[in-house]
């Protein structure tokens, strides 16, 4: 195999018609091109093409002009450029004259066979370069390594391993962690982070009053065991896979329920939520999703078997790409390949934190991913998504028992898969074998060695992919563990240890705490790839438990100074769109906390808004259910969600935006949903609190913000209620007390404190 590859390399180079560039030889892009651009291209380039000649790229040199090619690879010294330059014929006398050294560079380059830049993107359709061991040395592509935990820093606070990593780095700039957050702050933080619901006043009271040393651990245990945990953390995963119940692009406001809608897709959401609640090991979790159908012979299994059907539901993971082929005019080779391309992009982006989109058309410019490797990955999916014998989306769907499953499974034997020149399906290049990214394998051989365990009528390609990814000793698993652990960190701290959580390649950021990331990834792998222990560890740290209000000690609070001191306090994070809506529902006392089931209908209105009405719902109260259960369109989100950065699911999303746009203020002030929930909230307070105004204000604060108002705030609130009472009275309104209280409740929904978690 290795020999084969070497032969191929040589063959490839013959095709290129050039010897590989040795480091000491002039290279085109680095050495030659700058000379040509500065001295020749004024007349033979962009603005002018005298003699029909454009000398900006090697390819253009080969193409030449009126007098034929400027560069002849078979006879370098007879090349036009060589003759003209070495003879000092060109450039014509004047200010653009070449120095002797420059002429020498061009001469040596041509005599060496005019090698292209090693990663010359113009050489698309060929390997361009292969992956070297040096490429595998890049930090993210290495195997996991054991790292030691820094020593205790000498402060009197108990420090977890995480704290020691973080404190060690802070100490270098003379900083340390902030003081611990107050219990009321901590329970709100933990509860919003783990289950996505603000704590009820009674829960806060109990926690604040609990002085036992393990009170916080028990809080975490309770929240991690809550069935709402899966709703909160499942949603993160749904983002990462690009969860949608729509097959196509979803450009139309009106939903075509006949062709474009996957009515059983909610079962995948259910699968994700339950898997999170059961704390399924991540390796198992993704193996089921990549290849649940290949884990057993489902075709010959009992169609009512829940276990079998769960594995098939898991493969909906691979049904998220935009698939336009359900509509006959759009059933083209192009749109079929688009499904494949998006599937590869999502799998690589989500699991490995790599953007492979470049490698569709040419070898990656920045990362060691030859175009060949991209098509190797693509070939893993062609048995299921065979562009030649395409199966329409509806025909892929299975009905087992009375369960509709939007599954993925091999539709026939593996077809030949070709590298596509320039990513163009009408320009197939050579055939490629299914395989993996070479840079994440120890060598070439490993990259095409699939561990096949075919069960039933299937190629086993996707199962082989899952095995490769989950081989805890391998490079792929190492990268995947880093990426996933980093994403969990990002969800808790706002920004990952690698801030570009979607790009671990050369263009991505480097980790701020490399050893901590490495340590977390290793621990995660060694403790069975389970999320809940990881969260318990992270949230048990003093880093997580610290206050967000402390100024970093010894430093000016100028933002630039703060930027130097990440993690010297707990960052303030805006809640995601769903949690903002859920929190309003929870405060209003209206929330329907039922778990699971089909999606809640949303309707695009003629005025451009999207609303959740009581029409066409499983039950009338369904519209008060948590946002994770809303019909998952790719765009057209209920307005309250849309303005708070609900991600467009035309693609997947591993990091949400947190914008601060005026539409958010307008929505929170004026939207019907918000105003009605504020009204419900005030009714609840009206009934649950005593008749004294300060009791009502106190309860409203406790429900919405999880704290009591300060004396001054109390006074301001009292004044507001008095003024608004007068106003409603003057307007002759009924229920003036409750309406005035609703104004306060509405204000509380609008506060930064409600919208953020500190």
């Amino acid at each position, binding site marked *: 195999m290795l020999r084969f590859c070497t032969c191929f390399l040589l063959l490839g180079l013959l095709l290129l018609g050039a010897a590989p560039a040795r480091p000491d030889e002039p290279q085109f892009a680095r050495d030659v091109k700058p000379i040509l651009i500065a001295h020749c291209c004024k007349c033979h380039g962009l603005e002018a093409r005298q003699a029909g000649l454009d000398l900006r790229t090697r390819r253009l040199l080969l193409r030449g002009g009126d007098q034929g090619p400027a560069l002849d690879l078979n006879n370098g010294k007879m090349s036009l450029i060589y003759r003209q330059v070495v003879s000092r014929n060109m450039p014509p006398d004047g200010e653009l004259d070449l120095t002797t050294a420059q002429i020498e560079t061009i001469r040596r380059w041509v005599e060496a066979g005019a090698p292209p830049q090693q990663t010359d993107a113009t050489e698309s359709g060929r390997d361009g370069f292969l992956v070297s061991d040096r490429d595998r040395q890049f930090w993210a592509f290495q195997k996991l390594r054991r790292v030691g935990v820094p020593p205790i820093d000498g402060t009197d606070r108990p420090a977890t391993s995480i704290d020691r990593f973080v404190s060690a780095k802070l100490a270098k700039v003379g900083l340390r962690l902030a003081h611990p957050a107050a219990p009321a702050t901590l329970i709100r933080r933990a509860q919003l982070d783990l289950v996505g619901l603000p704590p009820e006043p009674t829960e806060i009271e109990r926690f604040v009053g609990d002085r036992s040393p393990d009170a916080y651990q028990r809080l975490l245990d309770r929240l991690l065991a809550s069935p709402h945990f899966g709703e909160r953390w499942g949603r993160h995963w749904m983002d990462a896979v690009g969860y949608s119940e729509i097959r196509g*692009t979803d*450009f139309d406001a009106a939903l075509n329920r006949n062709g474009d809608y996957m009515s059983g897709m909610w079962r995948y959401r259910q699968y994700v939520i339950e898997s999170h609640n059961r704390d399924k090991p991540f390796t198992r979790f993704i193996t089921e999703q990549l290849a649940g159908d290949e884990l057993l012979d489902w075709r010959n299994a009992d169609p009512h078997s829940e276990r079998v059907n769960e594995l098939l539901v898991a493969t909906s993971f691979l049904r998220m790409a935009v698939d336009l082929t359900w509509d006959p005019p759009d059933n083209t080779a192009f749109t079929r390949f688009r499904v494949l391309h998006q599937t590869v992009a999502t799998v690589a982006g989500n699991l490995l934190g790599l953007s492979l989109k470049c490698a569709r058309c040419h070898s990656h410019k920045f990362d060691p991913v030859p175009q060949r490797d991209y098509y190797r990955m693509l070939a893993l999916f062609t048995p299921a998504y065979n562009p030649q014998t395409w199966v329409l989306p509806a025909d892929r769907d299975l009905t087992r028992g009375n369960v509709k499953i939007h599954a993925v499974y091999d539709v026939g034997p593996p077809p030949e898969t070709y590298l596509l020149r320039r990513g163009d399906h009408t320009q197939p290049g050579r055939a490629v074998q299914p395989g993996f990214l070479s840079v994440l394998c120890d060598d070439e051989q490993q990259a095409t060695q699939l561990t096949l365990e075919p069960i039933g009528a299937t190629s086993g390609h996707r199962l082989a992919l899952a095995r490769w990814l989950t081989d805890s000793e391998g490079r792929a698993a190492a990268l995947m563990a880093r990426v996933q652990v980093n994403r969990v960190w990002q969800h808790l701290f706002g920004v990952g240890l690698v801030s570009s959580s979607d790009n671990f390649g050369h263009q991505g950021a480097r980790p701020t705490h490399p050893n901590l990331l490495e340590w977390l990834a290793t621990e995660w792998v060694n403790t069975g790839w389970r999320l809940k222990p990881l969260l318990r560890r992270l949230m048990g740290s003093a880093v997580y438990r610290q206050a967000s209000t402390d100024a970093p000690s010894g430093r000016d609070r100028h933002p630039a100074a703060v930027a130097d001191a990440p993690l*010297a306090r707990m960052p303030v994070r805006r809640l995601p769109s769903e949690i903002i809506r859920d929190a309003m529902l929870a405060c209003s006392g209206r929330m329907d906390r039922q778990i699971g089931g089909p999606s809640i209908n949303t309707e695009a209105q003629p005025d451009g808004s999207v609303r959740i009405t009581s029409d066409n719902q499983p039950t009338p109260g369904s519209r008060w259910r948590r946002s994770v259960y809303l019909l998952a369109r790719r765009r057209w989100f209920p307005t309250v969600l849309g303005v708070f950065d609900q991600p467009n699911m035309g693609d997947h999303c591993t990091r949400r935006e*947190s914008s601060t*746009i005026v*539409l958010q203020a307008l929505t929170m002030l004026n939207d019907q949903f918000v105003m009605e929930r504020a009204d419900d909230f005030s009714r609840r307070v009206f009934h649950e609190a005593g008749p004294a105004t300060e009791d009502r204000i106190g309860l409203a604060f406790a429900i919405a913000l999880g704290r009591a108002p300060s004396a001054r705030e109390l006074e301001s609130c009292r004044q507001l209620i008095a003024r608004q009472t007068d106003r409603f009275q003057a307007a002759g309104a009924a229920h003036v007390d409750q309406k005035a209280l609703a104004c306060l409740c509405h204000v509380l929904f609008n506060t930064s404190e409600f919208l953020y978690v500190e």
Partner: protein
Amino acid sequence: MHSLSLQQPSRRRWLRHAGLGIGGLALTSLLQAEIAPVHGAGQFNLRPKAPRLPARAKSVILLMQNGAPSQMDLFDPKPELTKRDGQVHSEKVETFQQGSESNTLLATPFRFRKHGECGMDFAEPLPHIASLADQWCMVRSMHTDHNNHTEAMVIFTTGKFLPGRPTLGAWTTYALGTENQNLPAYIVLRDPNAYSTNGTQLWQNGWLPALYGGTEFRSTGDPVLNLRPALPQPAGVQRDNLRLLAELNRNYLSRHPGELELEARIINYEVAARMQLEAGDVLDVSRESSSTHALYGLDNPVTAGYGMRCLLARRLIESGVRFVQIHPPAKPSNQPWDSHSDSKLDIEKIAPQEDLPSAGLVKDLKQRGLLDETIVIWGGEFGRLPVSQRTKGRDHNRNAFTILLAGGGFKPGFTYGATDDFGYRSVEDRVSIADFHATLLRQLGLDHHELAYQHLGRDERLTDPEVTGAQVVTRLTTD
């Protein structure tokens, strides 16, 4: 929350925050941009900027025609094609859809006629547009790189086929800011029932700061949702609510000093309050005369939707908005000019919705003296083939298409470039998308080599001239 306490203050993020100061605070940035107090001189803002070169135009109206209008059925008469209708074409054409290739020449079902003093050719489906022949500059030799709608639309709006780059409107507002600080600089008007193909991609800021992205306005009622309370309130209720809110938000900020987002949020509420008072009547067309309503076809249900967007475009341009982008009707489809099965039927579904309002817009701009400084672009992402798809329809053709330009120093009554005898390939005076972009920028007083933004260590340009070889097509313009 991406506060500066968490990460390196990336240049882009920092400047996005620094975009607008409290003093010069404008409704502009209101919808898209993030607003924060200035911590240093803001390099990025929407204040009007004078271009370095003499400008022929101040603003742009892009009438986007998704789906690829058919050049040989609308703008580019091909007698040879008509003569050889039904014969197999000698040149094998590049097709897009598979399984329907025929290479059989298909004559246009429409008659062409010369219009205006200039004698510009138009076929029957666009009589009103044709009646303005002496205003249009018709470019028949356009060509692009991709044969699928999605990619070609991205090329048309951003210059390259992979999504993620800034759009023409974003580059324009980045370079020139905008005249009216009370309205967004770059406004998008689309059919409320659907996005056109590509959706919001077509007005994204890409890696330019967010304040340069397009802002969607609705075309009826208030320009944005939730400009007024959904439930009635006595006057003054909100004012007092906002006062308490500001107090609570300031308290919160004082506990988290230096968090720019929290500061921005306080200012957002001030802007929101002003917007509610000021932005409501931007779209109020009730004071426009009935003849204006008729000019844009507001009196006819077929043309009213697109017509309203065209009228609003004029009002917005008149108010000093820099770039208005209009998307076509969503019926018969998200790319209404697409026509694979029957050119005649398909064109007759879309053309009547757009013909009168498009012409009305140009006429109205001309009457009001606005056309000289406004560039109007009417065009789609590519053209169509001279051969049939074993139907009466035509497949995609990236090798030739026609666009119309008006105003802004483009030569009126001028036809530029030519295709081969069948309209398959642009052969004379070919104009690439990059050339087209370079020329547009030039009319706005901008040199496409100079207009750059550093992204990932590379100076990026709309036209990427080093790669595309973009050149200003000086023969398209007066002077």
